[in-house]
């Protein structure tokens, strides 16, 4: 039974934790974190199970013959009047994201252990946040996708706004409005896709749909998408739709110049929420672009991708790295490094070849694990020193060798050291990018110098040199913190040496996506 509806279980099982937390007696409120950990743990185990069940040669509940890689499909009619379905499924694009989400959420729950204020509310919102994120990655129905997209916003808003740092209100509002601003554009496109789609081959009958797979088939989009509208050609309409979607997603990535909400949100958010934010949320932007823009508007993707994927991506890489170098707050530095690293994803996406797209999706996963470690580590030192000023430390290596070792590992993963996972994905993005854009990719590759520079410089200022006597008895990293870091470190190390499991997982789907776009790439 569970295997039949495994995606529903993975997505919604943790909701059971909410009544359980609400029913806790006042003096047992600490158990909220255990409940959260357990329900998310169940989803985590199920997602591992899903990984082993997902086999393209032996598809389970495949969407169709042609899309046999889209599996574990559940299709129920949700709102009949508007042809809205509860349609979920996973393919090679969403599988890595599903696994990333369960792992990062689980790890985030561990690092939420020290939340003291309003625990019940925190963990309930945390679970809701998880459901929203997971829902986005498993939805195949655009409406369902949109609903989850918005669901995730609210808990995030409160989690930053209530449990955050000194400027939490500002950061929370900024995050919320910015994302919302983007999703209004998405909403418009979603509704127009619905209104102007027709699945029924009979010209006299109309059958609208939100189904993302069907929308991608030729001849499904009608009306203005074929005839034009208000004097605009069909091409122009499609281009506008593409750009609207892009704005919605680019804010999430975040692509330059829509990125300024990110450093603020990160700096104010509690550690676990930063981890979720950078580890999972940012990926929704690039995921959406690959899931929706690529197959539904392939020609516009091919036309605009060179500028808005590859071009902006390279700006992200360089601009993010230079901005990171200028920061004195460690968390802000890591936040800007995310801007830089997500640029690699965009470059890979814009390459329109299999190496680039492989690299992009792999980079989404790898950045999720690496940046999770980085934010967890910032949290560790912040908990102890109560500040994050890079110049306010010095010589910590001799006091906290274990913490230093973990940080060094994470920093070197962040700067794309070969042998660790980030290298594989960055190299694939470069290889892919190089085919299409020689000069642009060369500029992007100079990011490897800048990334090394700001990370090592920060490392040196915090850990090396003469010990700052203020911290001569800084407590070493705790077992619980180590537990939250180890799964991520394991991913980084294993996928650096042996990335085959994840490359094989995504290959069939990504090859299909590339086939769609190929005819339009000049």
């Amino acid at each position, binding site marked *: 039974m569970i295997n039949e509806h495994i995606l529903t279980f993975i997505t919604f099982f943790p909701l059971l934790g909410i009544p359980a937390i609400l029913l806790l007696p006042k003096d047992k409120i600490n158990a909220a974190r255990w409940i959260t950990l357990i329900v998310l743990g169940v989803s985590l185990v199920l997602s591992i199970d899903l990984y082993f069940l997902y086999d393209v040669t032996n598809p389970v509940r495949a969407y169709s013959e042609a899309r046999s890689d889209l599996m574990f499909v559940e299709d129920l009619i949700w709102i009949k009047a508007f042809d809205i379905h509860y349609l979920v499924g996973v393919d090679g694009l969403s599988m890595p994201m599903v696994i990333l989400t369960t792992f990062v959420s689980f790890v985030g729950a561990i690092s939420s252990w020290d939340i003291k204020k309003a625990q019940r509310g925190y963990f309930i919102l945390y679970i809701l946040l998880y459901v929203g994120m997971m829902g986005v990655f498993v939805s195949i129905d655009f409406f369902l996708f949109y609903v989850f997209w918005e669901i995730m916003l609210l808990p995030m808003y*409160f989690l930053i706004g*209530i449990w955050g740092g000194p400027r939490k*209100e*500002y950061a*929370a*509002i*900024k995050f919320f*409005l910015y994302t*919302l601003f983007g999703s*209004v554009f998405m909403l*418009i496109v979603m509704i*127009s896709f619905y*209104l102007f789609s027709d699945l029924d081959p009979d010209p006299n009958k109309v059958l609208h749909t939100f189904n993302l797979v069907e929308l991608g088939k030729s001849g499904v989009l009608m*009306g203005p998408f074929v005839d034009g509208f208000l004097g605009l050609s069909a091409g122009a309409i499609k281009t506008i739709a593409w750009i609207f979607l892009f704005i919605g997603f680019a804010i999430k990535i975040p692509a*330059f*110049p829509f*990125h*300024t909400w990110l450093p603020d949100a990160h700096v104010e958010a509690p550690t676990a929420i930063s981890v979720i934010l950078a580890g999972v949320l940012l990926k929704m932007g690039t995921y959406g672009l690959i899931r929706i823009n690529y197959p539904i508007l392939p020609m516009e993707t091919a036309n605009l991708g060179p500028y808005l994927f590859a071009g902006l991506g390279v700006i992200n890489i360089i*601009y993010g790295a*230079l*901005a990171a*170098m*200028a*920061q004195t707050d460690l968390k802000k530095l890591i936040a800007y490094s995310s801007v830089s690293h997500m640029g690699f994803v965009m470059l890979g996406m814009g390459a329109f*070849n299999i*190496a680039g797209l*492989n690299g992009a999706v792999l980079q989404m996963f790898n950045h999720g694990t690496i940046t999770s470690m980085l934010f967890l580590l910032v949290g560790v030192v912040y908990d102890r020193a109560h500040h994050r000023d890079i110049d306010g430390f010095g*010589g910590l290596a001799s006091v906290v*060798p*274990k913490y230093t*070792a973990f940080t060094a590992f994470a920093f070197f993963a962040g700067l794309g*050291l*070969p*042998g660790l996972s980030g*290298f*594989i994905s960055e*190299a694939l993005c*470069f*290889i892919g990018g*190089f*085919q299409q854009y*020689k000069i642009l990719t*060369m500029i992007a*590759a100079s990011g*490897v*110098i*800048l990334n*090394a*520079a*700001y990370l*090592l410089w920060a490392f*040196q200022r915090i850990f*090396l040199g*003469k*010990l700052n006597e203020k911290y001569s008895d800084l407590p070493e990293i705790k077992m619980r913190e180590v537990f939250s870091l180890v799964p991520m470190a394991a991913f980084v190390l294993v996928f650096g*040496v*042996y*990335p*085959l499991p994840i*490359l094989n997982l995504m290959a069939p789907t990504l090859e299909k996506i590339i086939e769609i776009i190929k005819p339009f790439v000049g």
Partner: protein
Amino acid sequence: MTDIQGLAGLIPLFPIIGAFIFGMSAVFGDKFFKGNTVRVVSVFSPLMIFISFAIGLIYFAKIIQLPVDSRVIHEVVFPWFKSALFVSNIGFALDPLSIIMVLIVSGVSFLIHVYSIGYMRGDPGYSRFFSYLNLFTGMMLILVMADNLLLMFVGWEGVGLCSYLLIGFWYKDINNSRAGMKAFIVNRIGDFAFIIGMFTMFWVLGNATGIYSFDFSFLNSNASVLAKETILGFPAPEFICIMFFIGATGKSAQIPLYTWLPDAMAGPTPVSALIHAATMVTAGVFMIGRLGGLFMQAPIALTVVAIIGGFTALFAATIALTQNDIKKVLAYSTVSQLGYMFLAMGVGAFSAGIFHLMTHAFFKGLLFLGSGSVILGMHHDQDMRHMGGLAPRMKITGRTFLIGVLAISGIFPFAGFFSKDEILFNTFLASHGSIGPLVANILYTLGIVTAALTAFYMFRQYFMTFSGEFRGSPKDDHGHHGAHKLEDVHESPKVVTIPLMILALLSAVAGFFNLPEVMGGGAWFHHFLASVWPAPKGDHSQYHSLEISLAALSVTVALVSVGVSYIFYRKKKELPGKVVSKIPKIHQTLYNKYYVDELYDKIAVQPVLSGSRGIGWFDKYIVDAVVNGVGSVTKYVSKINGWIDANIVDGAVNGLSNLVLWAGGKIRKIQTGYLYNYFYYAVGGAMIIAIIMIIL
């Protein structure tokens, strides 16, 4: 024993396992080995390397038994990078070139591990040191054994990482850490070019042949296809090779990216010996050898390699003349000797370059370890002006050091003579090749002048350190550092001197591995490596008499230099001072290393830093200010709107928004204006959609 298969992966694996275990011990402290850390590490860390060396020997035996034209053992461990476009494996290819490198790396590394047991005794970071040293060796072995460029790059960056970690090993001194960081970042500049070369090659060759691959065997055997291709308007092979060579200038400290190496002397001396003399810095030379088939398609790039190599050799030698730090002299000497190796590669004498790489590994490893022994004996004073007359107090160190000095100076029959001579001979002959007589003659001149300078400054070093009067460390600086009386100086323990003796032996006799035919030898080394590259055109045997005269010339030059050095530093000790006072400007320039560091700081480091500050400012005060500006404008509009709303729209909307505001809790007080906005967006969006629907 020689029919063992599938073991190649173990060669780098053992040191990496060692690195992991000793790393754990470093992190968890003494309790990890139950208080026996020093003993366990001292035995097992060198043992890991010895196992690699032993397996290397087995493979060496296997390779020798193979027929000359198929001397390669290829073992794939598992597929690594895999996409529909290409596959690159974790795979190792052992051919004469890589097996020689395996033996040099693991052999020298083993000796230096043993030496370090003595050198690092009592250091609180003992276990950490050996962990890094093991990791370095593992990475270096991956670098030389990789069967494809991507895997080689793992080793390439991996050794860079270890270099970073080991230069900054004594991290409590921020200057050491800075030197480590400089090394890593300067190397990354080279790596950036390396990456570009790698990907250009991948696509250009792939598009031309239809096969996309990073494998060396494929690249080298199909490189001729590139001749017709162009990239960004340049001939493809030239562009690619120049990019790879820029990568090499970073790793192997050539002009313009050499500045990190002298600073790298901040690391413990065994590190300088292993990484910054014998192995890692030669990776660039090896890489050109590995890609020999490709470089042979790029005559201009090869000429550039030769010119840069030749000039670096001379340039660094001039700086070495004036340095007073015992390790700094050796550092510049290393840069200079690496220049020789590139000169060899550039004139197409690949096996001569690799041969010099090997002899250099022996004699420069020896010299560095010897200097380390001196530093131990001098109680951590490195200034040669405080030394002198150490030979009687440090008999083994002194004698072995002298052998090293003789070898590097190219005195017959020590190893350096044969390898350097081979290079000079081939440079001279290059006038018949694509380089042309003018450039070849200039390069030969550079080579021979460098040889003269080398003999001079190396004997200067020997005389200042080991002969004459002991001068002693000044009492005032560093109370606990330095030796003030000759009696304070002591010879190092056996664990230090035995590696010195072994390396001294190798420095003395290694030349005979490649004894030229003209001297009655079989040039074994040359012939063993020859099968790695396509056969060169032409036959050198007609130049036998020339070879003899050139050898005689270079030995004469070296001997004269030794004599001059003897006069300067033994007979008329006032001479150096006199010379310096005649040419103070030149001396200052040399002493300050031509101010290149200062120049780079001005033209590269500072611009990047101010650029980054500029971007930081731009981000905060422009990009983000726009966002906030839009926010506040909307807020004011919404206030007006809110007034209209309150007076015109009926209470239903207000009721609903109040409900949500209540949910917003405390946040409500501060930012209510924004929450209204949300509703306006949503309502507005719905209205737009409604309008669209009505129109249709």
